[in-house]
């Protein structure tokens, strides 16, 4: 009870990685190749990842990076070329989908057109041979949970996209799987509905306590919903962490650029002491920044500074990098400034608009772009 309240109380963006809880799904050095010979496609390349019990885990990456393939390997529709898939500690690599306590919400929903809403939801339980009374009870419960009681006896073709989505969710949750797999379930919905369903999905996950593995290419969606995120690219998992870790401590260039917007700067290394490094930016600005674990930097490193951490000041008042405003985009909540540094590098700053209306710069203004030292992140090369 205590835990349930605590979890419900955490803000959606809390990203509380449930440390200490056991691993529910594990991919051990899983590779999946399609085709053979010259045309072989390495959809997954020795991917290892552990998904903890009861967490909302997201696979995030651009189209074609292997997210669906990993999901299908967990569901059992594909079998790994190498490596193993473990569920709750047991190797399930050889089991067919119908022997895995794992259910999928398909991107296309894949509702059975010849069955009613209630029959769709009860299908899994019926296949498991549960008694009729129990099935009826669970179906009623599920219909209530996804707020579709009124649609009980409808044909699925009579439902809207959002309603089909709810039925697909109820159908996958009804057998109470250990893991629920969701492959871009919201991508077919319009923006408003998508936002609603994000909240809805999060609520369902909290209510049921089932481990969710959610696939998306939308970083905003991933940040808003996940306990932890695995960022994928070209068949590899690049980083696994809470939304905060991923956003604030991106492991590499790809993660930094894929999650949110960011500025990349080249900095000269002045000296290293312990886990810290002294950097010189733009020839003038000296900052100290933390080094990623075990990194031994060369003569120069790449650092990232998020646009919302940049501070713009008058050229003579600031202590930052001298720059010229090259473009201004007013967006209501904030204003985007594009800046050009003396060396020709481009910077992008996001400044929140204040009620009193702060200083505003115009194209061509000579300014200074500064940032607190804590905003600087050194990337691994």
């Amino acid at each position, binding site marked *: 009870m205590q835990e349930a309240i605590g979890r419900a109380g955490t803000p959606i963006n809390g990203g509380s990685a449930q440390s200490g809880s056991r691993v529910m799904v594990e991919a051990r050095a899983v590779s999946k190749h399609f085709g053979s010979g010259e045309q072989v496609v390495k959809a997954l390349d020795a991917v290892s990842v552990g998904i903890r019990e009861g967490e909302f885990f997201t696979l995030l990456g651009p189209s074609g990076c292997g997210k669906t393939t990993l999901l299908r390997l967990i*569901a*059992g*529709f594909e079998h790994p070329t190498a490596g193993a898939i473990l569920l709750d500690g047991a190797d399930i690599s050889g089991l*067919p*989908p*119908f022997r895995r306590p*794992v*259910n*999928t919400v*398909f991107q*296309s929903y*894949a*509702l*059975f*057109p*010849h*069955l*009613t809403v209630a*029959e769709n939801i009860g*299908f*899994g339980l019926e*296949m*498991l041979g549960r008694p009729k009374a129990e099935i009826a009870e669970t179906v009623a419960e599920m219909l209530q949970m996804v707020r579709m009681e009124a649609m009980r006896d409808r044909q699925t073709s009579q439902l809207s996209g959002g309603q089909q989505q709810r039925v697909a969710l109820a*159908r*996958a949750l009804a*057998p109470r799987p250990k893991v629920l797999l969701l492959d871009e379930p919201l991508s077919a919905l319009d923006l408003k509905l998508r936002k609603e369903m994000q909240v809805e999905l999060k609520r369902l996950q909290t209510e049921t306590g089932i481990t969710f593995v959610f696939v998306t290419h939308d970083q905003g969606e991933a940040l808003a919903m996940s306990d932890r995120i695995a960022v994928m690219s070209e068949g590899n998992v690049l980083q696994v962490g809470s939304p905060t870790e991923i956003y604030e401590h991106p492991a590499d260039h790809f993660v930094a650029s894929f999650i949110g917007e960011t500025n990349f700067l080249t900095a000269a290394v002045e000296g290293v002491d312990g886990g810290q490094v002294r950097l010189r930016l733009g020839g003038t600005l000296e900052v100290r920044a933390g080094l990623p674990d075990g990194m031994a930097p060369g003569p120069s490193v790449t650092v990232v500074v998020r646009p919302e951490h940049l501070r713009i000041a008058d050229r003579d008042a600031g202590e930052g990098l001298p720059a010229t405003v090259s473009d201004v985009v007013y967006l209501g909540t904030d204003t985007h400034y594009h800046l050009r540094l003396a060396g020709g590098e481009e910077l992008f700053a996001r400044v929140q608009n204040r009620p009193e209306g702060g200083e505003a710069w115009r194209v061509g203004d000579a300014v200074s772009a500064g940032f607190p030292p804590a905003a600087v992140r050194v990337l691994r090369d």
Partner: protein
Amino acid sequence: MAGPAAPALAPARTGETAARAARIRRNWLLATPALVLLLLAASGPLLVVVVYSVLEPGEYSGVVWELSGEGWFRVLFHRDIFDDTLSLADAHLTIFWRSASISLLTTAITLVLGFPTAYFIATRPPTQRMLWLFLVTIPFWTNLLIRTFAIMEVIRNEGILNSWAMKLGLIQAPIQILYTDTAVLIGMVYVYLPLMVLPLYAAMERLDFRLVEAAYDLYASRWRVLTRVIVPLVRPGIVAGSILVFIPSLGAYVTPRVLGGGKNMMISNLIELQFGEGRNWPLGAALSMTLLAFVMVALLVYVRNMSKVERRG
């Protein structure tokens, strides 16, 4: 509001209506020859058959224009030529029964054989499917009679099947298959199998295989996926294939004639006999009408049952 606009629009609309009417008239005109032909070709012979079935048989062939119920009567009853005693026409009943059972068996067997075949083709990559379909239709390239004689060559006592089985030591003496109901059945299954595969394939090609995955995901074993998802979804193909096989099976002539060897007749052979050696056209006509009634009743029962199954889900 519409007042001022109406007069301006009215002439235009009338013009459009007139053009449309003219177009429809022209289309009807173009369709008329075909419609007349269809009407004559379908109803003309049927009418002739209906009329002949209630006339007296002629001495050697043809009919005598005198009303008589004898043709219909003889479908079911036999009148002894010497003492006029009546008995059930056992021979006719046997032939009806054979026709019905062989046709049903042919439909069932082609369904069982055709279903996995169609599934196999539908699950090939799209580029390969055409090749497989092409292979299925190859038998249509040769004349039915030739194909039937080919079957005969395979199953006759000195044929490929028996001589190989004997060489392999499976049997000591040849098994008599030719001129049995089994031979007719084998021939019919062979001839009508493509008619089952094609509509089944058409239905399976449209099947959303993601639904099959969804069913596997929801703990359905392979058998349950077949019976609970695939079969209900390809039901239109099953219905179409069964009708396409059953109707021509019931009226099959060449296959029972060649492989049944004249002894193992089906309805069509019996009908032909009445118009030929039997010299009883009214009986032949009445038998034709009986066959037609068979087909209609069978279709009605089948479609009724299928839609009942559909409603039950």
